[in-house]
């Protein structure tokens, strides 16, 4: 081989290596980052169930969320169950089940304002005997209007150590919404 061809050969080989390193790629594993589009509150009393919904079907931003006003009877006992859904998926992704399996790191908090609107009593416990709030009892007060804040606190363990302590403090909000409530 002629000496002058050596660099040229080198160049050709390097170019070949360079080009052969390209390939078609695809990202398949990516799903949306645990999107929640809807929260449903089911109030049951005397065999009838009323459902009120907070829905943001296009996710964060875009169109404003649709919030239904909660209408309840005064001085009545209700069973309250909550449903959390991602309705942008087909079939609809029921996040309630995921929360139920991970009770130990989730806590629902219901805060009426004014506080005289209703009283909430937790109806379920996790393995360490802390409240969860997937189901519970609501006792409404006298006729009034106000707001009901619904929060889902995600309190995952830190380096294997559980962080849930029964209070709202640790963790972060997965859900934090305000319903208008009217008690008649």
């Amino acid at each position, binding site marked *: 081989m002629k000496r002058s061809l050596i660099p040229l050969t080198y160049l050709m080989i390097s170019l070949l290596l360079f080009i052969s390193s390209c390939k078609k790629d695809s990202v398949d594993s990516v799903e949306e980052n645990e999107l929640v589009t809807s929260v449903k509150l089911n109030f049951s009393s005397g065999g009838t169930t009323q459902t009120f919904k907070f829905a943001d079907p296009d996710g964060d931003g875009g169109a404003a969320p649709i919030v239904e006003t909660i209408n309840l009877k005064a001085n009545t006992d209700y069973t309250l169950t909550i449903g959390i859904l991602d309705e942008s998926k087909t079939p609809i992704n029921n996040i309630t089940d995921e929360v139920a399996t991970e009770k130990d790191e989730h806590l629902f908090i219901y805060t009426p304002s004014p506080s005289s609107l209703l009283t909430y009593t937790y109806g379920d416990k996790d393995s360490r005997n802390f409240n969860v709030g997937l189901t519970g009892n609501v006792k409404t007060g006298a006729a009034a209007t106000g707001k009901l804040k619904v929060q889902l606190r995600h309190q995952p363990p830190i*380096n294997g150590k559980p962080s849930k302590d029964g209070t709202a403090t640790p963790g972060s*909000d997965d859900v934090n919404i305000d319903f208008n409530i009217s008690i008649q």
Partner: protein
Amino acid sequence: MRKKHFIFIIILHLIPQLGTKVLFGQTKSEVHRECDCFIQGIVLDDVSKLPIVGAVVLIKELNKGVSTDAKGFYKITNICQGKYTVIGRIVGYEEKSYTLNLEHGAEQNIKLSESELHLANIDIKAQKIENLTQTKSTLENAALDQTRGQSLGEALKQISGVTTLQTGSSIAKPVIHGMHSNRVLILNNGVRQEGQQWGSEHAPEIDPFVAKKITVLKGAAGVRYGSDAIAGVIMLEPEALPDSTKINGEINSIYFSNGHQIITSGILEGGLRKIFSTKNPCSFGFRLQGTIKRGGDISTPNYRLANTGISELNYSLSADYKIKNWVSDIFFSQFNTKIGIFAGSHIGNVSDLTEALKRGTPLAIYTPENFTYTIGRPYQDVQHNLLKIKNTHKNPNGNLSLTLGRQYDFRKEIDILRGDKNLVQLFKLTTYTSELLFEHKPLFKLLTGSAGITGLYQENLTTGTLTQPRTSTVLIPNFKNFTAGLFIIERIVKKQWEIEGGFRYDFRHLNVYRIPRGTQSVELDKLNNENVTGTLGASFRPNARWNFLTNISSAWRAATVNELYSDGVHHGAASFERGNENLVPEVALNLSLTANYISKRVQSEIHLYNNFINNFIFLSPTGRPALTIRGAFPEFFYTQTNARFRGIDLSANFQILKNISLNSKFSYLEAQDLTNNQPLILIPANRWENTLRYEWQKTTISLTNIYVFKQNRVPNKIIFKDIPASEIIFSEFGGDFAPPPPAYSLWNAAISQQFVIGNKQTLGISVTVSNLFNSVYRDYLNRFRYFSDEIGRNIALRAKYSF
């Protein structure tokens, strides 16, 4: 580092051919000294090994110089005995200096001018440099060794005018003159780094151990390095590959007490000469380099931060082959890192953030008693690969080189998710770069310069396949980016003057494949931008003590994909960010003036700059909440304004006594939103740093104080006129969540010792204590200032063994 830079300037001043006069350092004639010694040698191009004709070689102390002849040979005669610095210099090359002792033993040797003791043979290998009229700061040798083990951003803080934008203590982005991310161009071994630099929590994907020299070019440097270098350029350069058969190497071992971080980095290099039995000189050189880093939870003065560990594994391989007038080199590097994100910084919405701010100290669950190396969620997992192939051909008219690069950047951001699901934010970026450069030999004996063509092709994948994205709610959409540029830079050197000018044309074509919100079909957006940039600068040396540099440069940058299309919650930042598809490119015009003064005891530099940016793109708060199911988030829009960044970088070194010196650095910056007549948000505070250094033989002891002022220049009003005042809720701190933290003062101390073992082996050991008094402080440019204090006392032990 500064000192190094000054030496460089001294050299510039003392060239007799430039008409400078001897002002200092002249040896007095001494009775008992013999002055028949001489120094001779050859000046060679470091790469091609070809002799350099017309290079100036001078003895610094004597201000005595000669030019090399047609064979690159020089000889300086009639020198007295003593310690001298020999400098080689020619336009277009970097100065090289060597120190040598011309000794004299007994009296009978007086006349023996040819004696070994009197003769020194120094072959100077010069390296090319690119720019002469812009201010450069370099980190190398001892100054670089002192930063070993730190991230690139942290290391560059040594340079005045450079700060960092941090996310905790492990993620640091370099900030030059108040600007960062896409406005700071990083050249890793000659290839522009293309990672996920758009994100404020995305640190440069580079192992600083690859570099033997890190240079920061402050100010717009669009013409030579790429149109988007608005704030400056950071260049990481390894040493030239060896061409001798000797095997050399280096081992660095570092331990940081805070986080019990252990770092080991090694280099092994060698070469072969004349592998073919031919008259043509040819050689082969190689280098293997690798770094392992492992660190656990770090501590602030009062508490430990959960999940702040880091792990890194990096390596690089390089080889070159030289034959006659060809040089081919290949470089491959891989950078892998896994960085834990402080668990207490994970927030759901603005009320979580407000709670965290109210608490001041993180909850006990986030500040564990027990130390661990384990990295849990959330964390970042990043890989960056670089393959570079460069071929250079030397011919009588100049050098022609072709550089090809391929980079693959793979970033995973793993959040705290329900059911330990492996749903992640993925970013895959593949980039191909090319540059064809021609550096011509002097024309008419005074005009030197270069011209080049550059090209870049890039594909970003975050969902589905490139042209078929699957989801609409990705942080940045899939895109295909093509840019091409054409440039020419020429310079004239005449006596005390050096004048440099150049221009560049760039074109960008961007294809964005995305599913707009609420629709099902893929939309293709095509964006085209083109622009011209220019540079004009001058260097003037009226005498040996002063040097003035002035430069006017432009640069432009088209809006990046995140600025155009962001639309969603930025977790961790607790903000709702919305891009703007109508953003036009920003154009910067940077004016700078640098004055250097050198005398025997004082070396100082003052750098003044004024950077006007038309249509400066930034994220500005709207002051109103964006309502989501996770709660309310403060809303931010990407918008444009006319901005002005102006400031002063001052640095000075005073030799107080023979062994004691004081180094002082001060940086002042004022960034103003000219359209809205208020300061810009997130601009680094002014800093003043002083180091007292004691040097005795091979021992150095230093004490440093860093004083960081409070940033008083923060925006005070919401700039969006069409947002009704009734909707604005977050207006207290001009849209920020908390006021800037107070000023702070830190003390660092260091002691280092060099040992020479045997023939060429050296061992350097140093102990450095940062934050000596374990002060509690927070920095305005650390995003974690809302949640936690900065890192506490940190003792670093460093050992470097070279063989």
